[in-house]
Structure formats: structure tokens, C-alpha cells
């Protein structure tokens, strides 16, 4: 049995430890690790090495090489470093390598040494150079903290969404702090630094001095500090060889230990096994390693989720394996296979040696219409690699045409974007906004002529824009019609202006003239003539107002003549009727109504006798009865032609005579009409008469 425990060594009174090799590194290092900047990604991720030629003691020689290995030492990438001096390396949570240069520029590389992007930590950093830098991880992502040559700190808590925060000054700080670290409290990143015997906590607003509880006296300087991965715990190593371990909030001490070694350690880190309740700090010197542990307390470690695992596989381009895992775990397509295929496609578009056609085809073959795959995202990646044509080809596969639009706009394919925005069919809030956005792009991008020309080919966009202009940009609307040679609409536009926009009579007439010209050009002679008539009428109405007073402007022709008759201007009325060729029938209706309104029965009779009425005499009967003048009505009833005689007689209440005429006409309809008017006792005889006539007619 002792073979199981033989390699276990006691640690303190109650714990044991053992050392064994998990695996051996495959790498074949040419440089000493101590001469390199080294960064190992969390969760067994890759390791980056950069030989550091910028150390002061060694003169700069050849360009250094940046090497990336897997956790087991398999080479993943190797590239010549052509950029500036690097101060610090670190991996982001997304396994991107962040290389912090002395000038504050951070270069970002992928797992395979592919350059992604770069960003700067700001001007202050550029001016004072980077003295020291740390890459740290929080729940929001990975951050960068910089200590500048002016002993000021600048940090960004998330390099994915870069917001630079310059931390406040530490009072009296003349030289670099002896040690510092980032801590994360209440979801905000802080800096903890040691200056001589003092500790300071920097947040974005203030610098405050802090004291660890239960710290042994006699400390004149802190040599090393370490926070745990979860930011819960802090370890401090002092110049007295004393280690303080407690919570990072500095509210509680967990334990302390005096190791009696006063030399500054090279490294100090928290370590712990997953799910273990024991925590320990490992302190390393040149030739010595010490593990300091404490009493159990519960710590929860975040597990590597399956999504993160898949991400890692994808980053390592192990697509088939990732897909197999998805299928094995029966992950929903959108979260699993689709996502991995999309990643694969984004990788595929970067293969510059393959033609656009082949890449597009290969991607479409593999992806088809897998749900959850966004061709527009893949196309955006292609565009990002400078492959515009490929991007356009890929966009063709995007089934939702609305999704194609933003990228097309970015690629300055606005016209194509417009047709796609329209193709997306819906002019709803989002999509109508889409068409509108494209329109505004186009408006700014093209000159007016080309813009209008483009609109002309897109009726839906045109009508949308026209609607907008109608309310908001009337002049543009006019230009639109002009550009289109749409004289009909242009004419309508000026007609509307003649009563909506213009007030002075001259302006109105001028607007009408422009309208008439446009109508002629549109070969709409009817509208042109009508408009000219209106110009004449307006001028005339103006004159009438001047000469007669009263309101004439804006009356219709009919109402103008009526108004003249009502104010006794018969001569002028007739002149107007002649000038504007008012048809006889209308004139008779008009005069009849006006004279009856005036109750000028004498004039009405004169008028009725002026010539044979083109509308017959029944209207005279009707209008007199409407004014309750039976006496006058009867005069006209006798002149009504035979066809309407019965109606006229009934109107004036002469049922008996109406019956006679109907019987004489032998007209069944007329007889029923009269019968329906036979009410009351007085008409009894008449009714009988009709019934007899009917019976007689039937006998025949």
C-alpha cells in the first residue's frame, strides 16, 4: 500500500502534497524562459513567448520572434516581431493575445498569430511611456492596466469596448510603487499599490490609504502582492519575510505566515484545485518554491461551460471535432452546429489564395440555409479582409434582404442597398427606416440629378420620399417632378400653390400660369384650358370685388354668377355666362334657383317666357312649391309638357286633374302614382274613377 503514499510529502500538520508530471512539453525552446516575456492563457489555453531584446542590459540585436504554443507546447504560430518594444504580454478571455508596447499601443493577435487590430491607451501613456502593464480579467471581459513613466495609472476594464480611465494621482508618489495589482470590487476595477509601508487603493475618483487588518508590525515595504483569480483574496509579502493572507476587500485576515526569507520573491500566485475548499499561495524565488495554505473555506470556481469549450475548439480551428461534440451533446442547431459553421465560414473567407467564387460556393454548399447562420455577418468578415466582391457574393445568400443593407451601405453600394431595402418589402418601422436611411445616404453621396434618377427607378422609394417632401420639403418635391419631366404633377403642384401658398392675387395668377404651361407640356389641354379659365375668373372676381364690394374671390363660376344675380347684377351675370360659355341648361337652373330665392316672382315669370325652357317647366313648379307659393306654381304647371304633366299636377295638389290626365294617357304607372296620392275622403271619387278606368282598360 505504501506505493500510494510514498510520493506524498507532509505540508504543515494536517496536509500532504505530491508532485508529478501531467505531461511533458513538446516544445523545443531556443531561448531561456527567463529572457522572455511569457503569457499563458487561463483554462489551459495557449502560451505566448517573446524574447525580450529591449532589456536595458542587453543591446537590441536582431528582431525578436513571437511564438505561440499550445498548453502542451505544440507550436501554433511563429512570427517576426516588426513593431515597437513590448512591455507586457497577456491573453484575453477570448484567447486573443494582447501585446502592450512601450508607446501605449496594444496589438491584438489571434491564437494562430493572425493580426486582428490595435488600439492605443491614450496620449498620456504615449507621452510618458509604459513602465509596467497588466492584463486582467473580470466578468465583463479582459482589461489592461498601465503604469506610466509619470507613475500614473490608466486602465480599460474591457478591451472589447474600449473606455480609457485615467486614475487619480497618488499623493507624494515620486518613484514606481514597489508592487501593484488590479483588484475588482463591486464590479469596478481598482488598483492596489504599495509605496513603502503604505497601501493605497485607487478607484476612478479617489486614492485612499488602506490597512490590512491584523498586519504584523515592523513592515517597511511590501515586496510582492497577489490577488486570486476570482478577486476574492489577497496575499502580501513584506520585506520582513512575512506573508499576510486575507480578503481582497481588506476586511478580514485569513492567516499569516513568517517564512523568514527576506529576498523579494520572483512570483507569488494563488492556487487551488477546482472544487477544493483549500486555498494556498505559491511563492517562488530563484531556487525555492513555497506553498502557504490555510484553513478550509468554501470557494466556488466557475466551471468552463460547454459554450466556452466550443469556442476554444473553434479558435483552434478544430471545427469537425466541435461539430461532433455538438451533435453528441444534441445541442440546438443555433447554439451548436450553426455557430461553428459560421465560424468556419469566417475563417474560410480569410483564405486569400482561394478565388471569390470558390469561397462563396464552398460556404454556401456547407451552410445551405442552416438556421441561425447569418450570411451578412460572414460577408462583413469578408469585407473586413478587403474582399468586397466576395462580400457581395455572400450577401446574395442572405435570405433576409433587409440584413444585407447595412453592409452594402458600408461598402458604398448604396444603389444596391436601396433595392435590397425595398426588396425587404416591408416598409415598417425598421425597414421603412432602412429605406429612409439608404435614401439619406444616397442623397449625401450622389449629386441631386443622380439621386433623383435613382429614385425614378424605384417607385416605392420615390413615393416614400415624395410623401415626406410633401409635408417637409415642398421645394424638393418640385425639383423631383422637374427632374422627371413629370409636367402633369408639376402642374398640380402649382395649382395647389395657387391657393395654398400664394396670397396676393398676382402671385396666384402667376402660379396658375406656370401650372397651365406645365399642363400644355404634359399634353393635358383640358387642364391647361381650365387653368386659364380660372386665371380669367380670378382677375374678374377681383374686379368685381373692387367695383361692387362683397366677396367674390374663390367662388366657383356658378356661385359667382349666382351672387351677381342675387345682388341684382343681371347684366353682368349674363355677360359672365357668355364669356365663360356657361351652357344654357346650367344657366336656367341657376337663374331659376336664384330668382326663387329672391322671391322675385315677376322676374321669374319674365325669365320663363324669355324663350323655351331647355329644362322644361317642371323645375319651375318644384321650386315655387319649395318656396310654398302654390299660386305661382300653378302658372307653370299648365306649361309642363305632357310627359311630366301628372307629376306637376300632383305637386300643386290637383289630384283630380292629375287623374284625368293619367286616364287620358292610359298610362298604368301614372295611374298608380295618382292613386298613391289619393288620401283622405275628398279623393274618394277620384280613386274610384281611376279604378273604373283601369277595369275598362283591362277589358280591352
Amino acid at each position, binding site marked *: 500500500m505504501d506505493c500510494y503514499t510514498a510520493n506524498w510529502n507532509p505540508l504543515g500538520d494536517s496536509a500532504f502534497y505530491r508532485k508529478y508530471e501531467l505531461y511533458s512539453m513538446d516544445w523545443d525552446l531556443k531561448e531561456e524562459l527567463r529572457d522572455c516575456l511569457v503569457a499563458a492563457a487561463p483554462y489551459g489555453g495557449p502560451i505566448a513567448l517573446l524574447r525580450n531584446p529591449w532589456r536595458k542590459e542587453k543591446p537590441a540585436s536582431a528582431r525578436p520572434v513571437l511564438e505561440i504554443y499550445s498548453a502542451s507546447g505544440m507550436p501554433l504560430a511563429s512570427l517576426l516581431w516588426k513593431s515597437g518594444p513590448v512591455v507586457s504580454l497577456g491573453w484575453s478571455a477570448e484567447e486573443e493575445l494582447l501585446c502592450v508596447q512601450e508607446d501605449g499601443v496594444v496589438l491584438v493577435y489571434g491564437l494562430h498569430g493572425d493580426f486582428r487590430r490595435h488600439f492605443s491607451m491614450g496620449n498620456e501613456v504615449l507621452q510618458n511611456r509604459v513602465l509596467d502593464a497588466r492584463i486582467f480579467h473580470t466578468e465583463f471581459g479582459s482589461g489592461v492596466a498601465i503604469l506610466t513613466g509619470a507613475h500614473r495609472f490608466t486602465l480599460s476594464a474591457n478591451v472589447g469596448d474600449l473606455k480609457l480611465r485615467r486614475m487619480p494621482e497618488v499623493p507624494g508618489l515620486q518613484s514606481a510603487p514597489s508592487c501593484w495589482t488590479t483588484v475588482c470590487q463591486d464590479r469596478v476595477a481598482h488598483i492596489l499599490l504599495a509605496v513603502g509601508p503604505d497601501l493605497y487603493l485607487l478607484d476612478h475618483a479617489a486614492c485612499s490609504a488602506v490597512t490590512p487588518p491584523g498586519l504584523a508590525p515592523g513592515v517597511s515595504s511590501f515586496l510582492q502582492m497577489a490577488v486570486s483569480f476570482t478577486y476574492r483574496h489577497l496575499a502580501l509579502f513584506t520585506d520582513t519575510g512575512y506573508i499576510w493572507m486575507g480578503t481582497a476587500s481588506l476586511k478580514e485576515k485569513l492567516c499569516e505566515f513568517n517564512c523568514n526569507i527576506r529576498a523579494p520573491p520572483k512570483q507569488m500566485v494563488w492556487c487551488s484545485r477546482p472544487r477544493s475548499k483549500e486555498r494556498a499561495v505559491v511563492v517562488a524565488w530563484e531556487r525555492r518554491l513555497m506553498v502557504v495554505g490555510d484553513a478550509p473555506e468554501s470557494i466556488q470556481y466557475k466551471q468552463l461551460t460547454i459554450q466556452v469549450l466550443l469556442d476554444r475548439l473553434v479558435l483552434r480551428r478544430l471545427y469537425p471535432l466541435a461539430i461532433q461534440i455538438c451533435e453528441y451533446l444534441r445541442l440546438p442547431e443555433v447554439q451548436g452546429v450553426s455557430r461553428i459553421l459560421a465560424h468556419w465560414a469566417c475563417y474560410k473567407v480569410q483564405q486569400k489564395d482561394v478565388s471569390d467564387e470558390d469561397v462563396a460556393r464552398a460556404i454556401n454548399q456547407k451552410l445551405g440555409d442552416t438556421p441561425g447562420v447569418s450570411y451578412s455577418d460572414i460577408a462583413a468578415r469578408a469585407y473586413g479582409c478587403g474582399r468586397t466582391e466576395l462580400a457581395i457574393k455572400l450577401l446574395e445568400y442572405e435570405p433576409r434582404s433587409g440584413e444585407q443593407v447595412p453592409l452594402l451601405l458600408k461598402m458604398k453600394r448604396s444603389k444596391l442597398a436601396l433595392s435590397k431595402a425595398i426588396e425587404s*418589402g*416591408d*416598409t*415598417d*418601422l425598421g*425597414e*421603412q*427606416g432602412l429605406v*429612409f*436611411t439608404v435614401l439619406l445616404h444616397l442623397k449625401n453621396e450622389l449629386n441631386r440629378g443622380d439621386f433623383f434618377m435613382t429614385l425614378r427607378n424605384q*417607385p*416605392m422609394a420615390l*413615393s*416614400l420620399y*415624395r*410623401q*415626406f417632401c410633401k*409635408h*417637409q420639403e415642398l421645394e424638393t418635391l418640385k425639383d423631383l417632378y422637374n427632374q422627371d419631366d413629370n409636367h*402633369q404633377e408639376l402642374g*398640380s403642384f402649382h*395649382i*395647389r400653390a395657387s*391657393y*395654398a401658398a400664394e396670397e396676393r392675387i398676382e402671385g396666384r395668377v402667376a402660379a396658375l400660369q406656370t401650372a397651365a404651361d406645365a399642363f400644355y407640356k404634359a399634353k393635358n389641354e*383640358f*387642364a391647361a384650358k*381650365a*387653368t386659364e*379659365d*380660372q386665371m380669367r*375668373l380670378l382677375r374678374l372676381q377681383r374686379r368685381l370685388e373692387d367695383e361692387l364690394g362683397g366677396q367674390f374671390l*374663390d*367662388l*366657383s*363660376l*356658378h356661385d359667382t354668377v349666382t351672387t351677381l344675380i342675387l345682388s341684382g347684377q343681371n347684366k353682368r351675370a349674363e355677360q359672365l355666362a357668355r364669356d*365663360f360659355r*356657361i*351652357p344654357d*341648361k*346650367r344657366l336656367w*337652373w*341657376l337663374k331659376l*334657383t336664384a330668382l326663387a330665392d329672391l322671391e322675385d316672382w315677376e322676374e321669374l315669370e319674365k325669365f320663363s317666357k324669355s324663350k323655351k325652357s331647355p*329644362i322644361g317647366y317642371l323645375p319651375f313648379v318644384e321650386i315655387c312649391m319649395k318656396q310654398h307659393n302654390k299660386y305661382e306654381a300653378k302658372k307653370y304647371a299648365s306649361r309642363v309638357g305632357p310627359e311630366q304633366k301628372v307629376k306637376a299636377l300632383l305637386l300643386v295638389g290637383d289630384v283630380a286633374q292629375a287623374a284625368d290626365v293619367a286616364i287620358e294617357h292610359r298610362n298604368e304607372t301614372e295611374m298608380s302614382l295618382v292613386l298613391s296620392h289619393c288620401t283622405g275622403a275628398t279623393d274618394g271619387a277620384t280613386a274610384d274613377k281611376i279604378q273604373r278606368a283601369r277595369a275598362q282598360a283591362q277589358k280591352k
Partner: protein
Amino acid sequence: MAFPHRPDAPELPDFSMLKRLARDQLIYLLEQLPGKKDLFIEADLMSPLDRIANVSILKQHEVDKLYKVENKPALSSSEQLCFLVRPRIKNMRYIASLVNADKMAGRTRKYKVIFSPQKFYACEMVLEEEGVYGDVSCDEWAFSLLPLDVDLLSMELPEFFRDYFLEGDQRWINTLAQALHLLSTLYGPFPNCYGIGRCAKMSYELWKRLEEEEDGETKGRRPEIGHIFLLDRDVDFVTALCSQVVYEGLVDDTFRIKCGSVDFGPEVTSSDKSLKVLLNAEDKVFNEIRNEHFSNVFGFLSQKARNLQAQYDRRRGMDIKQMKNFVSQELKGLKQEHRLLSLHIGACESIMKKKTKQDFQELIKTEHALLEGFNIRESTSYIEEHIDRQVSPIESLRLMCLLSITENGLIPKDYRSLKTQYLQSYGPEHLLTFSNLRRAGLLTEQAPGDTLTAVESKVSKLVTDKAAGKITDAFSSLAKRSNFRAISKKLNLIPRVDGEYDLKVPRDMAYVFSGAYVPLSCRIIEQVLERRGWQGLDEVVRLLNCSELAFTDMTKDDKASSESLRLILVVFLGGCTFSEISALRFLGRGYRFIFLTTAVTNSARLMEAMSEVKA
């Protein structure tokens, strides 16, 4: 009366849920602006809002004063202003001017704009251009379906008609698709879908896409409504242009029903006050006469009055106990019925008076002649006289349009002379009205080739329908034509009259137009439902210029109960008339129809939408 539904007629779904949803959402939006606020409401939204949330609900959520949105400076002294508006540019300018006036005066308040049923990008753009975008917060009240009655949902968007059919503006299509989507999430998927018209097709496609995007939400739900039928208003303008003669339609034509209620003036109430009356199935008297031809209504009402009197008369000879019973249980109901009865009798009298004055019989005769296509010259003269006498600008326009559509456009001479006469009577600005009507295809001139219409119609009598179809084809390449005459023949829209049409016992849907004409829209729906699709209707579809625009989409759904398969939702894009609703209610045949319309319309509303009026 009022064609009792067959005993097995399916139950209607409960649409009051839509009201509750709208109310809850509105309250949520009001709560987003905590504290006291003044509410500015657009006039068009007042009645719909009233059906959803009354003043006391608004007050409960800290609405202090209510104002109408009108072009006047605001007198409100509140620190918070909330605007409830339709997404119209003129509203944006009003709000912007208000905010800017406050700025000039150095005053800061909170402003919130609630767009109903949705906001449009153009509106936000105007706010931005006027420099107030940052000062106001925008929200949407997705209230797009108002249940006006147990079987009638209205979007209350009368501008849909002009925006789409005249201006070609498609933005409301999304609103519609969203509304349909809401219905399918609440009442399950529709196993059978039919439609005709460009707008119908676009809305349908967009709706389906919304369903796909929110994949699965309606899946597995039991369909409550078995069929949906979408129909564009421009497929059938004729029906909407006819004078209405069923009671509800006639009340709408005469008094204008607004958002399900009508204002009866003193001439109806026989008092000195006007009365706002809600017209729906809950009004027992109205419910029995709403679908009746007007000629029956009076008789029915007087019979009802006699019955009522008899019930009152029972009081005589009652002992105390019986009397107590009568007063506590029956009297209230009788009184209510009495009140309603006298209102509707008043309305009838008022309608009769108005109609005799206008010589309604003559008018109806002309309309029937136009529908049947005889005595065209006589009808044209009638219209001319109508114009010359300045009877009514809207009526004259309506008759001109009816003539144009039934005749495939006016002959050039009439087209010119009627327009000239119209301009002389009603003012030159109507030159623009005519331009609108032409664009919408409501009033057109026969193209030179079209003068052959008369010949063509003769030819079609002589040769087989197929050959006539070919001839028509040759012409239709010239212009989009209404082809009403040919459609009418194909679909038997003009019933053969043998003897008097008994309006008391209607034979077919033609009763809604005194037996003279079966509404085209309703006939199409009837035929498609009967055939379960468009098979055999190719020729009709072609004549309607909808060859690519008629669609059927049937999914086999085993979960659909036989009950639900007898419920049909008919969606009218651009408005439907009460006559059409009555006709389909009559059609029944074990089916029961539910109506969804962008707005209830009639001939006057259609014409007003096309008319250019001086501001």
C-alpha cells in the same frame, strides 16, 4: 328577422381580450412618465381611446388635464406633457413648435410622444430636423385592432385608403401584418388563407415572415378561426360607391357612424339635445334591424312598438304583487327598449325626410341603370343635371366614378364635359381631385382603343366567352381597365328578375341593394370559399387585373375543430361598407363571418379621401 343564425352556427371568439391588451399597454406607457402629466390627444384617436380607457382610468394614472392636439399654442402648465398621436408629420411639427416655444421661454419640461399604432421613421426625422429629437422621448402604443362589435374589428385607419391606393405608400402594410400576427398569437393559426390584390399579397407575405421569425409561437395552438380572406378595396370599388339601403349602411350614409357610435341630432331625438348612441349587437332593437332593407324597417319598428304597448298594457288588471314584480323586473327593460325604439323610429323618419327631398328613388334608379348597363345616355344626363344643380359635390363625384367604372372609363366627350361642368359648379381646385381619381383608376377616360367597348360587348354576346376573353385581352394591354360589365356577367352580379324581389325574404346577397346587384366583393368571397380556392375563377381574376395577385394557402391542420372551420375572418384593405358586412352576415350558410377592416367606409368617405379641398 335579422336572419337568425343556424342553431349550429359557431360561437365567435372573444375579442374583448384585444381591448384589455390595449388598455394594459397604454397604462404601462403612462406609468413610464411618473407623476402628474397633461395628455394631448389627436382628434382622430379620441373616440378609439374612449373605447379602451375612459377618463377616470387616465386620471388614475396621473393624467391631469386632457387637450386636443390642434394647431394652437398649448395652455398647459404641467411639467410633463404627453402626446398621443398618429404618426403624422404635421403632428411632429406641432410638437416641435411647442417644444421650441418652451425653449425660447427658457422653460424645461418633460415631453413624451406616444405613437399609435406605431412610429414612422419619417416622424422621428422631422423631430430631428426641427431640433427637438433629444428633448422628447418616443414610444409606441401598438393598438391597432379595436373591436367595434362582436364580429367587427377596425383598425380605425381611414388614411390607409388614400395612402396606399392613391399615394402608393406602403408603410401601413406592416401595421396590418403586425395586427394579423397578433390575432394569430391570440386565436391560433389560420389553416386556410385566401386573398386577392397587391396589398393583400404583400401584407400576407410580410405576416407569414413575421410568423416565421417568431417561429413556433403559434405552432401547436388550436386554430379558433378556420379561414382568413384578404381583399383589396380596389378589387371592388363599385360596391363601395353605391348608395346603401340596408339600415346600418343607411344610418352611416345619413348620419355617419363614427367609431361604432352615432350622433343623433335634435331632428331624431325630438328634443333639443343631440344624443350619442352606441350602435352594436348590445342594442337589441338595432341588432334586429341593422341588416334589414330599409323598406322593412318601418314596418318592423311599428310592430315592435305595438308589442311594447301590449306589454305595458298588461299592467292593467294586475294586483299589487304582480305590479311590484312588473316594476322591479320588467319595467326597466321595457323602458330601455322604449327609448331605443323611439330613437330608431326618429332616425327612420329623419332618413325618409332627407331622402324624399333628394328624390332618392330617382337616384337609386340611375345607380341601378349604371350597374346593369342600360340607358347610359340618360344616366349621363342625370349626372350632368345633378352637377348643374349643385346638389352635392361628393354625390356628383360618386356618380361620375360609378359611371366610369361600370363603363370602363368615360367616353372622351363626356369625360371633358362632365369635368368642365363640375369645375364650374364646385370650384377649380377639383382639377386636382380629378387627377387623383384618375391615378386611383376611379374616374378615367376611355383610351382610343376602348371606344370599341360597345362593339366588344356586342361581340361577347355573339361569340363564346372564350373568344370574347381574347378580345378583351388585346384591349387590356392598352390600359388597366375595370372590366366591370364582363365580371358582372361572369359572376351573375345582376340577378335575373322574375317578378318582384321580395325584400322581406331575401333570396341572395343582392337584397342589400334592393335586389338589383350582388356586391362583387362578397360574391368573390362566396365563390372562393365554395371552391376552396381560385380554381375555375381564372377568367374573373384576369378581368380583375389580379392575375398574379390571387393566392390560396392551405395547411392541413388536424387540430382545427369543425366549429372553427366555419369561422371566416374577412380582411378588407382600404375599408369595407356596412352593406358588405350585412351581405356576408346574410350569406351565412353555416359559416359565420368576422370582419377586419382598416376602417368602416362608404361612398362619401371614399370620395372625400380623393377630394382636394382648400385648407
